[in-house]
Structures are given as structure tokens and as C-alpha cells.
């Protein structure tokens, strides 16, 4: 990453945005702390530690933001340079779809297509390997868990697994 282009007060400075997000989170934590009541120093309430942690978060976030403004930081583009950014996005999409399918379809019906997708879409593996692997790996794991460790993976509405 030697070819990072440093920019100062520009909107594509990734450091600046990191700091600002941190600041936002910090403010939210302070607000939550206040809402949960601070209590007294003799008997601190539920929000006591949250409140002070929020203040610390803001302090660190401000120092990151200031550093980003004065010293500059790499742009978003430079951080993703030469990267196939589409691939992680694809993996994330597959995982999100899986997350929604897991409960209704059950483990086997959702994990097998997930494996097949991951094996074929990112860096395609030949079909003759992808198909058996995507079926046998989840099935094998399911069997070991169910019969050796007595752990039941979700079976979904079709009661498969």
C-alpha cells in the first residue's frame, strides 16, 4: 500500500469518515447512558459506565478526525486499489441470503446451496468437485453433530435434518 494518495480535508478521506462514525457512535452511547440514569458516585446506576465510555469514545474519535484533517489520510479509492472488491460483496450477499433462509429452510437446505454458490461464484471450482463437496461437507457435519454430540441444527419448516 505504498501508493496511497493522501488527501487532507476532502470528502473521500477514509480516516475522516472513520473518525466521524466513531464520534457519532460515541454521542449515541453518551445519550444512552444518560437515558439509563447515571446514579450517584456512591451507587452508580446502569448508565454510569456507558456515559463515561461514550465520552472517551468521543475523545478518541475527535483525535482521529483532527489527525485526518491535519495530516491527511488515504482515500477510499486507494484502499480498494487493485482489489476485486466485487468478490467480498458477493460473499456478503450469499451470506445474507443464507442468514434469512436458515430459519425457514433449515440447515441442510440452506447450507448446501450456500456452499455451491461460494464454490462456483468467487473462484469457480470445477463442477465435479463443487457438487459433491457442497453436499457432503454440510451433510457430514450435520451427522457428526446430531449423532455424536447430540446437537440439533435447525431443521426448518420441512423438518429436514
Amino acid at each position: 500500500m505504498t501508493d496511497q494518495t493522501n488527501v487532507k480535508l476532502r470528502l473521500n478521506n477514509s480516516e475522516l469518515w472513520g473518525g466521524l462514525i466513531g464520534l457519532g457512535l460515541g454521542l449515541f452511547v453518551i445519550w444512552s447512558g444518560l437515558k439509563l440514569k447515571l446514579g450517584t458516585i456512591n451507587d452508580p446506576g446502569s448508565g454510569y459506565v456507558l456515559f463515561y465510555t461514550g465520552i472517551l469514545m468521543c475523545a478518541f474519535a475527535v483525535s482521529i478526525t483532527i489527525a485526518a484533517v491535519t495530516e491527511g489520510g488515504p482515500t477510499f479509492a486507494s484502499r480498494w486499489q487493485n482489489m476485486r472488491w466485487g468478490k467480498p460483496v458477493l460473499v456478503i450477499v450469499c451470506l445474507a441470503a443464507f442468514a434469512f433462509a436458515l430459519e425457514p429452510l433449515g440447515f441442510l437446505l440452506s447450507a448446501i446451496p450456500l456452499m455451491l454458490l461460494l464454490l462456483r461464484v468467487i473462484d469457480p471450482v470445477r463442477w465435479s468437485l463443487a457438487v459433491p463437496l457442497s453436499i457432503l461437507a454440510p451433510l457430514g457435519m450435520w451427522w457428526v453433530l446430531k449423532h455424536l454430540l447430540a446437537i440439533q441444527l435447525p431443521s426448518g419448516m420441512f423438518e429436514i435434518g
Partner: protein
Amino acid sequence: MSQRNRLMVLLAATGMLVSVAAQAQDYPTKPITLIVPWPAGGSTDISMRAIAESASKVLGQPIAVDNKAGGGGTVGPATMAAGAKPDGYTIAQIPITVFRLPLMQEVSWDPAKDFSYIVHLTGYTFGVTTNAESQFKTWQDVVDFAKKNPGKVTYASPGTGTSLHVGMEQIALMAGVKLTQVPFKGGAETNAAVLGQHTMLQADSTGWRPLVDAGKLRLLMVWTGARSPNYPDVPTLKELGYPMIYDSPFGIAGPKGMDPKIVAKLHDAFKKAIEDPAVIATLAKYDMVPNYKNTEDYKKFVVEVTESERKVIDTLGLAKK
């Protein structure tokens, strides 16, 4: 059935829809989680483990104990009420704080509606201990010291709103002193606190017994009606001039809306468990005796306890505003 046959049966069953009625019939078909809302190693934890172990033999499925401590024993049941399915695979020990805390503050559960009460099991022996090296030889020493130093006497309790907290506040009110409560999560922690002299006293159930027997802790009083046969020299609350008995009886419950058939199965299994001599022996180690109530009586009991607790909380000024 051999492993191979089981697989065949499973394959055959694959794809078949199983009706809800059949589920209650077959229950239990997988391990059951029992939430114990106290840290591992205290008197509740160990007695519940012994009971669960015996009940699991009746049910034919293992019962896994899950320690979810905090909030004076309410974090576990509250978590169950909020999220668990009423399928009988998640049940929890219900300490008295589940009824008491809602009277004292805003909480996320309603003890009257959010639980399917199953069976009432047993109660505790509570006691107040101090480190063997402490200046307090008797309870009177504590009162005398507290009168001169208001608020300086600290005691470790298993949580705000527990019987130990409420009981100590009642005692303090009657003795005309001010004590400072330090809320821990349960017996294992309060033992360490008083052993290390981080607090002057410990108010907790019989988890202190091995330490008292070993002479590391001194038992100042017990909260039972009669003196404990194990400690005939230790006075009861009544003898010290505080006309109260605390035993905080407890049972188990599941989330609301459980199938009565499943409740009945659990009830039977746990009833057998507290009749099991091995369990009675384990309970006796902690000065606990079985206190069986069936599902209906347990429900009535919950209403009664809530009412009597309301009165106590009001007199102490701890009621929620």
C-alpha cells in the same frame, strides 16, 4: 438400535411433517436447557444440578444447566421469558426475586403472565457470616459497631432485591442501624468477598457451609424458623429479636404458553427427582429440604407471595415510584 438403523429411520422420516400433538407425545427428543440464574458453584447451582441430573434419568434426555447470573437471579428467567420457545426445551429456576423486583422497579417481565409454572421444589437456609478473623463475634457486635459507624458495615448479598437484601434491610430497620449492601451475583462470589474481607459480612444461602465448617468463616445467625441441626449454637432471627423467617422457596417454570402435557411430563420428572434419596442427600449438604407443590398449588403460591412481598417492600420504602 444400532447407529446404522437409527440413520435408516432418520432418512425414512426425512421430509415427513410431524404434527404438534406428536411433538408433545414424544417430548423430550433432545437435551433440555435448565437456566440457573446464579453463578456456577453456589448452593442453588449445585442443588439444581443434582435435581436436574436425577430428573434427566426420568425424562431420558440430558438436562444441561446454563448459568445466567445477574440481577439477583432475574436475568436468567427474564431472558427466557423474552426469547425462548415454549417447547419445553428451555426452563428456568424461578427465585423469589422474579416476583419481588417488579414491585421495586421497571422490569421487562410480568411474573403473572410471562411464565408457565411447572413445579415447586425446595427452599433455602439463609445465614449471615463474617470472616473468622473479624472483630464481630456475635450479631450484637455488628449492631453495636453499626450504631457508632452508620453505613460503614458492608455486606455482600447475591443481588439487589433478593431475600438477603430485603431481609438485611428489614433487620437494619428494626435494629435502628444503617448497613451498606454490595450486590454480587451469587454465592460463589459472596464467599470470596467475605473470605478476602472485602465486605465485613456475607448474607447468603448455605454455599458458605464448607467454609464455616473449616473455620474460615463465622456464622452469626440463620434465618430459619428453628436452629439448624448442623449449627446448634447459632441463633435464629427470632431469637435475636427479629420476628421473621426467610426461606425463599423456589420452583421451576418455562416461558408462557407451554403445552400442558409437556408441563405435566416435566412436573412428574422433577417431582421424582426431589424424592430421589441421592438428591435429598445433596440438598441436605446445603441444609435444604424438598418442598413440593404441584403446578396448580405453585400458581396459587405465586399470587400469595407477590401479595405478601408487596407489604414488605412498602414498609421498607423500596417500592417503585
